[in-house]
């Protein structure tokens, strides 16, 4: 949400930026107006644009919270359907992103609870599909050389395992603030924590991550 007007599609701080995206709040207002006017086709069309604008970011947020692509996929779908069915209760004076991310975060939280309940009874773990590309894939892929790609993949896996080793709340806040570029206030709204608590968790997460990275560097 930084780098634009409040409520617009948040841009990842420091990350690769795509083409200029339209305001999600504006699109949400269009959807709401069409639904209230009973114009189904227009509502559907405007909502399709809204989904296209916000879908990728929503998927990343869900992935950070759930750490499972299939579950994140389902959570994003549920969140968008909830948004559409409750679009008439959307307050137009508030940013759409804050409203949506809260819905998405609640949906992810519900799924986490359900998963924990399920895992109590299941002995088979989830296939998270984090095996990474094979050497053949890397050799055939365009871009950097296979050696560089393999080293990059290995380095990425180490970094991600360092993040995964953090406590769950610290990890979520680190991913949302540090990686996704959300402000502590926004993350606080999403997670139900105060802004200062989010800052404390973020600081502790970075300190632990720094320690883990240093330890890994020493081992190498």
């Amino acid at each position: 949400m930084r780098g634009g007007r409040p409520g617009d599609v948040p841009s990842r701080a420091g990350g690769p930026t795509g083409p200029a995206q339209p305001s999600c709040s504006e699109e949400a207002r269009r959807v709401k107006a069409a639904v209230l006017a009973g114009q189904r086709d227009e509502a559907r069309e405007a909502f399709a644009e809204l989904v296209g604008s916000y879908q990728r970011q929503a998927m990343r947020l869900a992935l950070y919270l759930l750490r499972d692509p299939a579950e994140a996929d389902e959570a994003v779908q549920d969140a968008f359907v909830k948004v559409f069915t409750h679009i008439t209760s959307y307050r137009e004076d508030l940013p759409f992103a804050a409203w949506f991310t809260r819905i998405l975060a609640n949906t992810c939280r519900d799924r986490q609870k359900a998963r924990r309940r399920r895992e109590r009874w299941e002995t088979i773990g989830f296939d998270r599909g984090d095996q990474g590309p094979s050497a053949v894939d890397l050799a055939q892929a365009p871009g950097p050389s296979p050696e560089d790609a393999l080293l990059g993949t290995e380095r990425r896996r180490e970094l991600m395992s360092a993040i995964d080793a953090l406590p769950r709340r610290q990890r979520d806040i680190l991913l949302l603030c540090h990686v996704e570029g959300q402000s502590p206030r926004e993350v606080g709204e999403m997670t139900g924590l105060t802004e200062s608590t989010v800052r404390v968790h973020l600081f502790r997460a970075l300190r632990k991550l720094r320690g883990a990275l240093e330890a890994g560097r020493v081992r190498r």
Partner: protein
Amino acid sequence: MFAAKRHLDENVLLRRYLADRGLAALDASDEAPLRHLAHCPACEARYLALRTAFDDTREAALADAEAACTAERMERQRERILRRIDSALSGPKVLPFPAAGQNGHATPQPRVLRRWVAAAAAAGLLVGLATGRMVFNGGTLTTADASRQAVPASAPASAQVPTMRALHAEPSVSDEEFLSEIELATAAPRTRELRAIYAITLDESRNTPRPVGKD
């Protein structure tokens, strides 16, 4: 002077990094360490290493997430969302009744036709009631008949039809009784219409008293 020459703590570097990212605010106590950072090459190098490590981590996490957001997955997800929205917009589906029509769609009946059918059914009911009332009150079945029919089946047969015993020979009736009944019937006063027949067939008048032992 002495404090300024000490190298910076890791926490100070972290706060500086968060402040650079806009995720935290520096306060007045950070002013001196930051002055040190600007003039200490060693601390500057440590800070750059820390920043590079965190930036690498961020890039790795982003790449990890983006790897899951393939174009195919995004398109499929978008289609599913819109399909669910379409079903929400169209409302609940009502399955057509099987006999509604061959093509599965029930043809709506005109409202006037349905009213005519209802009126005809009501008229038929009224006519049926009136006919039934006429038949049972003014016609074939009287109250006496009904009461006779209502006699229980256990009542004796003689009470129901007294003349039947005379006409039918029952094994229990003796010959004497049977002959006396015939006698009684022939001794009954004759009707005027049958006198001519009696005159031809009988040689003496029935009204004349016969002497005892003449037959």
